[in-house]
């Protein structure tokens, strides 16, 4: 008898706690948001340093100029769209183009809005270190790559040359490209950008040749100068069928996306994030401070903010 009363009480309490009726979990903020009366903005950080640089500067300005508390969460690109749609993060500051997601969330569900361009143009390609390209200038054309397969061999790639790919979250057609261009190469996935960068640095230290999937803007170019290998030119739609791709990657103007509710009610923070726009050089400067000089993102952002007031003043209108 007593058991039944306890159970009833517990169920009742649970219902009271959660509120009866429907609960839409897609409209649910992070439990860490808005603690202690502070206004909080949650930003998604992707795993590459450029994205960290954007977030670091935005965070610094939000905290020091506008008095927000900023939470950052590292989420991979595609899941970040889902999280953005649910409001668990408020903004993505650098998106490399995800047409499927855009269709679903921006056009259909209208839970995400475009926040304007970042001002940076992204480009993916295949790169060899410049010291190697100088010795063998013809390596920069894909047609000659097979000649160098031998030199680019590693234990991991077996009998073929190694084309190193990075994080699984990045857009890549490399397996199809190797196949369709009849290259004597094996795609080896580093599995994460951290692993890829570490490996590139190790190769560079020994002046060894390597071929890697890489992208610009990227701070690593400053440390390890790399030259792009020309692939068959990109034409609109040549990458439509992922199995049959045989052309280079496009140049993508990077975009910002905001949660729809945040864009509407986010006040100064939303306004700042919409205005946020800088150049490739700016981003690289901050990235380099974070990744190479190992400054904390906050410290790096502070240095950039201190020396580029004219740039960010205009975002605070």
């Amino acid at each position, binding site marked *: 008898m007593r058991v039944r009363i306890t159970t009833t009480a517990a169920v009742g309490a649970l219902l009271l706690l959660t509120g009866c009726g429907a609960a839409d979990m897609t409209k649910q903020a*992070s*439990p860490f948001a808005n603690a202690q009366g502070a206004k909080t903005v949650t930003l998604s950080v992707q795993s590459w340093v450029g994205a960290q640089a954007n977030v670091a500067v935005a965070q610094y300005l939000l905290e020091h100029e506008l008095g927000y508390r900023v939470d950052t969460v590292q989420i*991979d690109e595609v899941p970040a769209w889902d999280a953005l749609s649910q409001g668990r993060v408020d903004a993505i500051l650098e998106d490399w183009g995800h047409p499927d997601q855009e269709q679903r969330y921006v056009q259909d569900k209208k839970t995400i809005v475009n926040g304007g361009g970042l001002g940076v143009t992204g480009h993916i390609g295949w790169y060899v270190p410049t010291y190697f390209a100088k010795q063998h200038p013809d390596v920069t054309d894909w047609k000659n790559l097979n000649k160098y397969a031998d030199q680019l061999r590693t*234990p*991991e790639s077996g009998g073929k040359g190694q084309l190193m790919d990075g994080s699984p979250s990045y857009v890549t057609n490399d397996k199809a490209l190797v196949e369709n261009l009849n290259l004597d190469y094996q795609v080896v996935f580093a599995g994460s950008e951290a692993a890829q960068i570490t490996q590139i640095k190790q190769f560079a230290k*020994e002046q060894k040749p390597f071929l890697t999937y890489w992208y610009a803007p990227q701070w690593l170019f400053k440390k390890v100068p790399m030259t792009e290998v020309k692939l068959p030119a990109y034409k609109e739609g040549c990458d439509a069928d992922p199995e049959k791709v045989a052309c280079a990657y496009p140049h993508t103007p990077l975009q910002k996306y905001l949660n729809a509710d945040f864009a509407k009610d986010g006040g100064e923070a939303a306004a700042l994030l919409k205005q946020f726009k800088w150049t490739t050089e700016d981003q690289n400067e901050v990235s380099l401070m974070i*990744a190479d000089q190992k400054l904390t993102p906050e410290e790096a952002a502070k240095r950039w903010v201190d020396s580029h007031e004219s740039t960010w003043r205009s975002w605070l209108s």
Partner: protein
Amino acid sequence: MATVTAAASRAVIPGILKVAAGRKLLVLALAAAILVPLAHTRWASGTWPTALTVDLTTPLTDTSTWIIDNRDSHPLFLYFLGHVSNAVVLAVRVVYLLLLAAGWAGTTAFAALFAWRVAGARLALGAAAAFLTCGALGMWVPTMQTLALMVVAVLASVVVGALLGLAAGLSGRMDRALRPVLDTMQVLPAFAYLLPVVLIFGIGVPAAVLATVVYAAPPMARLTALGLRGADKEVLEAVDSLGATARQRLLTARIPLARKELLLGVNQTIMMALSMAVIASVIGAGGLGDRVYQALASVDVGAALAAGIPIVLLAVVLDRVTAAAGDGTERTGRAGWAYALVAAPAVAVAGRLMGRLDWPDTWVLNIAEPVNRAVDWMTAHLYSGVPVVGGTAEWAGRFTTWVLDPVRDGLQWLPWWAVLLVVAALAWLIGTWRTALTATLAMVAIGVLGVWEPSLDTLSQVLAAVAVTLVLGIATGVAAARSDRVDRALRPVLDIFQTMPQFVYLIPVVALFGVGRAPAVAAAVVYALPAVVRITAQGLRQVDPAALESARSLGATPAQQLWQVQLPLARRSLLLAVNQGVVLVLAVVIIGGLVGGGALGYDVVFGLAQGDLATGLVAGAAIVCLGLMLDRVTQPTDRRTKKGA
């Protein structure tokens, strides 16, 4: 003539049949003789025949799309899962706000006073030092976020686990139904839990908490059931003989008698929840794990360590405090508790009045830089060109070429039915026909899922890593068992490696071994080594001293003692070490995907990163099957019976 041969064969066959192993192999050989030609004529291929695979891509993708599209409208989500999600968010938020409201001084005081009451003054100092270190590393807020998540996840796990354990402890049928499930969950890598939860709840704290609960509740359930079932029969009989009702029997005898196991369960749950809270940063759990994960992205070992140290400290403090509570050395006397209960809020209020709620920025130590310099120095000097021994990169290359490649190619060259036969034979020889059946079915499932090749690739890495782990681990374990000094020196190192989030050592591993399968193996070895060392050392130390003494009195040299007495007598521990080694190595396979391990690990990471649940779930399921198979193949038969006690 004919009679002679007949007589001879009759003599031989029973000879074989007498040995159980021989009989089992004979049965298998017969089955194979019938089935293999059939299978071979029908699907003649070395790798798993495509005719026998089921492509799950379309249904899984459809499911995933359906869930995303209906998450904000379907009643299942609105009226059930939504509430679950809300409750989790609310609970975590309440705890988090409480922790923040207490401020750093209040929280530290509370932790220290609690540790003092439960475990004594030394641990109280340790707890206080640990919390202050978290602050000094600039990790106060992330630590509190992780703590809030942990508190909720642990409470939920303990409640769920205890209820399940209660059911299994009181009902034999429930126990039989639950035990295989819990046994299986025990061997699953933490990553395998992430995908299904993300599919339903999306990225974020609710998914992280629920994944943690699913991961951390089974040990609680197991131990609760074990405690309830292991209670002294005579005590229960005595309770019955005094005319206790079922309820009185449960409350006054069975549960108090299981106290030790219950507290051990809480301890295990906390440890597992902590390790999961870090891994769950991949799905947006935030907190310390996220800091480690972010530091990884900028190849910043120092920053990763700064976030990793608080995790280690939390783990050590929580482990010691709950373990001390389980020892039953609790202090009685209400005065102490009352004092603690008054002092903690007092400190919190004092901190509040002084306006010192947030950790002061000026008190933050920057350890990242020196650590990075040390790591750079290490990699710069060890990577290559070291005289005589060669650099780590060369080792990695040779390991890949001479060990990993042959094993992988060998496995993939074997016809699929041969692999199944080998697995069945091994599992049967070591266990029972049941284990053999489970192991074989697990392998079949891998084939049917259509990931035969990558699974064998992963298997080759696991085998290589296990071999290295066992050689190193048993050698170190022997050293630790023979010398107290080595043991003492090793203990903190093992503690650290066991609790340090695996993300932290990914970068050093890549810096030393390059990208590929070799660093994945290295990461697995680092992760699995402590457990193997511990179990080996413990097993050797527990060898009956009388046996050792008699060997010594017969004039055995230390080497003879080791080989002829200690190792054979510690056989059971060594088998357990193998089993644990296998399970732990497999748990890191997915992490290995982050450093170029490829195969299944990469697929899971890919699935998580791209939201491609078809790839991720299938690879995750294949890892689960591999885990089941490996566990069964390395599981000594009597483990089961011992657990049943």
